[in-house]
């Protein structure tokens, strides 16, 4: 089997009568489903594949070889914080004393699990400078939605129902305005200054008693620290709004700045970014939401609380508060992800965690300074954990950011984030993380310079990259114009 170009679907390996499982004999077969009314049963069996065990193992192993993870190679994907995902996290996440717990089982029998949940809440609170956290949200965007629900609940509790708008910078992540819309809020966009930070003069006239709050990420999506943050927070607070911190860019803040100390009232954290849990090809993530004192009663239910007794005795319980905004998850969120994040925090401890931000920032600045003579750096000066180039410096070759990104794949690197933020036409957003060695960064820098040279010497070759990947550039238009999204459709087509 040619595993590099492997492309079969599991359905195409199916033969009637094969099986890949083993179950005990049914000891109680006299109680049979045939007693169910026929009208309630399926007319046709589902068309699932029938495959033996080894075939399944080879199939998915071959498919994994067509993938690229942090363990495979360098992943400078801006805004995504592709850290190393420590192996001890994975080991602890499948600890047998935790994986078999039913989420609704007797509270006295899950005290260990509740302690993990509670202590992670507290750890995040001290790291972020917030009063309380909930770990229920499943992802960053889910955290944003939950945080905005807290914001609306706060205004509603004061009978202030005119506040229907939320301010979002033009450089914000797309989830910010989308979360606001799902939460029933109207979006007002505030412009950026030429240096990429929020234009305070543009913000002032937007502020009135219809503003529920403002969403910001700091450093922003250009990797620039919003130096006017104290003034912005004061302006928003003075008009009665709350400040929301999008934690997607929290990594450079670790050890240096706490969102709760610089004027933010509500925030989320992406455990799958800052706290090293794996991205898993798009999830499961976790998006804990933190709030300052005075907002904790609005956090979603259920909540994990600690009840202190005599003599240092305490126990954990689950609470449904009367002021809570409601439930946003079936149970207590992605518990397996929390086990990993808590392990990571314990591995670093209170001293080493302070090095995360500065080292991530050092790596980003080092790459920026090493490449700015060949790539267009639109904003000079020190960046934080990431920065944005506006394509190649030499635009005469016709080689675009997309081409550079695709050519990087040929050299065994994942591409940076491209065409985001929308402030530049050829945005190329690079985030190295603190885990990468100088040798890795130097290797990446060399390749980026080589591609810049190739763009001059042989632009057509760069424009048709990648050349060595399992598949070549894909026809996106065809996929969207004539969507084929299941095997059944595909088989009918063939």
């Amino acid at each position, binding site marked *: 089997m040619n595993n590099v170009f492997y*492309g079969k679907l599991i359905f195409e390996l199916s033969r009637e009568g094969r099986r*890949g499982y083993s*179950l005990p004999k049914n000891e109680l*077969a*006299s*109680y049979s489903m045939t007693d169910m009314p026929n009208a*309630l049963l399926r007319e046709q069996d*589902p*068309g699932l594949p*029938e495959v033996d065990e080894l075939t*399944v193992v080879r199939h998915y192993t071959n498919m*994994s070889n067509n*993938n690229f993870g942090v363990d495979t190679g360098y992943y400078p994907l801006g805004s995504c914080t592709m850290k190393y995902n420590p192996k001890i996290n*994975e080991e602890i996440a499948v600890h047998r004393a*935790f994986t*078999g*717990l039913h989420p609704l089982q*007797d509270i006295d029998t899950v005290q260990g699990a509740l302690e993990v949940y509670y202590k992670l809440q507290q750890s995040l609170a001290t790291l972020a400078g917030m009063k309380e956290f909930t770990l229920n949200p*499943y992802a960053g*965007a*889910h955290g*944003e939605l939950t945080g905005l629900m807290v914001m*609306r609940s706060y205004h509603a509790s004061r009978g202030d129902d005119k506040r229907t708008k939320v301010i979002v910078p033009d450089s914000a992540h*797309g989830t910010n305005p989308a979360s606001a819309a799902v939460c*029933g809020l109207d*979006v007002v966009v505030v412009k950026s200054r030429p240096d990429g930070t929020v234009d305070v003069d543009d913000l002032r006239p937007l502020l009135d008693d219809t503003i529920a709050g403002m969403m910001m990420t700091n450093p922003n999506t250009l990797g*620039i620290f919003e130096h006017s943050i104290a003034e912005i927070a004061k302006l928003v607070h003075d008009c009665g709004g709350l400040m929301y911190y999008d934690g997607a860019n929290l990594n450079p803040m670790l050890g240096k*700045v706490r969102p709760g*100390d*610089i004027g933010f009232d509500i925030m989320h954290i992406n455990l799958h970014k800052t706290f090293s849990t*794996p991205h*898993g*090809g*798009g999830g499961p993530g976790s998006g804990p939401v933190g709030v300052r004192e005075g907002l904790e009663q609005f956090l979603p239910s259920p909540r994990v609380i600690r009840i202190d007794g005599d003599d240092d005795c305490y126990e954990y319980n689950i609470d449904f508060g009367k002021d809570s905004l*409601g*439930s946003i998850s*079936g*149970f*207590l*969120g992605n518990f*397996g992800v929390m086990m990993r994040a808590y392990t990571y925090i314990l*591995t670093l*401890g209170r001293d080493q965690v302070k090095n995360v931000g500065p080292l991530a920032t*050092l790596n980003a600045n080092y790459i920026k*300074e090493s490449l700015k003579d060949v790539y267009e750096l639109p904003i000079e*000066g*020190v960046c934080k954990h990431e920065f944005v180039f506006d394509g190649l410096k030499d635009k005469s070759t016709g080689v675009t950011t997309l081409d550079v*990104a695709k050519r990087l794949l040929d050299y065994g690197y*994942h591409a940076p984030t491209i065409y985001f933020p929308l402030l530049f036409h050829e945005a190329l957003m690079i985030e190295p993380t603190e*885990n990468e060695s100088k040798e890795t960064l130097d290797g990446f820098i060399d390749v980026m310079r080589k591609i810049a040279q190739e763009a001059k010497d042989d632009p057509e070759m760069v424009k*048709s990259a990648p050349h060595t990947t399992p*598949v070549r*550039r*894909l*026809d996106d238009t065809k*996929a*969207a114009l004539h*969507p084929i*999204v*299941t095997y059944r459709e595909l088989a009918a087509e063939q």
Partner: protein
Amino acid sequence: MNHKFFPHTDEDIRSMLDKCGERSLDDLYKDVPSELVFKREYELPEAMSEVEIRRYFDELGTYNTQLTCFAGAGCYDHYAPAVVADIIRRSEFLTSYTPYQAEISQGTLQYIFEFQSMMTELTGMEVSNASMYDGATATAEAMMMAVANAKKRNKVLISDTVNPIVTRVVETYAKFHGVEVEHIAAKDGVTDRAEFERKIAQGDAAGVIVASPNFFGIVEDYTGWANLCHDNKALLIMNCVASTLGVLRSPAEWGADIAVGDGQSLGIPMNFGGPYVGFLCTSKKLIRKMPGRIVGATTDLDGKRTFVLTLQAREQHIRREKATSNICSNQSLMALYVTVYLSLMGKQGLREVNEMSYSGAHYLAEKLTETGHFHLTYPDKPFLNEFVINTDLDVQQIQEWTVDEDFQFGLRLDDHNILVCVTEMRSKAEIDALVESVKQYIEFINDQQD
């Protein structure tokens, strides 16, 4: 620095700072006003070695008790083949990002395509997205989809037989999204048909949410429901327990427009509530209203069959506040879990799982009834692996008694009713042992009363 996660030597840091024209790491933060810099200590323990971390979690684990599980209510203790956990640990899957760079992400893209294909086979629907956070949020997204589809209507009906955990999440989303949720009462354990007919006839509902099997484990008969919904221009949304789709009449066969639910019952460990995976399937004509990622088939420059994220024009990173949803990720790795599970189990394995669960649940119901202190709360209603049983005993006391013998004997619904579940994981010996424990409790009570 000297930590296994930080590779730089002092010399590396010096030379890199030189390149940046800075003297110290602190200088990299010179753009941060100094009054905003955190200068105190975090309230965290000191760093732990791996030896200490293992010891720490081993000790925390002793505060949990592994119970023999007879509980369901949205989370089910099912068998998963050893292969599944092994495959999802492969770091090429585990440590990759969302598959934006399709040329080096065919592994992820292909399994999502397989996941979508399998979920459409199970639900009978035409299309599926790449997965959602969980079953409850998937149902809330379906509710918003129905409202967006109806344009001028903002009311949704929900049956009181839907799992209250799901209903709670739907109501939270509805409250903030400006949707009115009206309940349809339960009668004898099933949705009150007369009330449904009355409310749908008002012609102002965008959608109707029902469950199969419902919260009480009952398999409801939805004959004619879809027609009534469609006659009144509402979508029928069916929340399903994924594993039961292997045998029960599918949402498509009932005529549903959107099928949603949690995929946890497809072998995902209970894991104290997550991570699980939600699914959302619908008809092709509603595909552009769907939230979340969708993977489609296409070809590459060489004409080779490939897979790619498609119909992204619906999504937040393109449409921002006009997107169909704010969802950005999916639960990708858990979708892989389900895909590998279903590849191994196939239709026959899923059938056996349901047969065994049915047998165990009906046997346990019979044995409990024979004690003379229990009877099925809804005796005439068909159920698969979950049922409500009424008792004249004190529910809280009997649960405490059985927990002491390491059983989770169902979940308490009220002072007299317990929701009990049996899956293929429970052997006859385990069921008998639970019944024995219950009998001992009855004897204990009788002795006390004598």
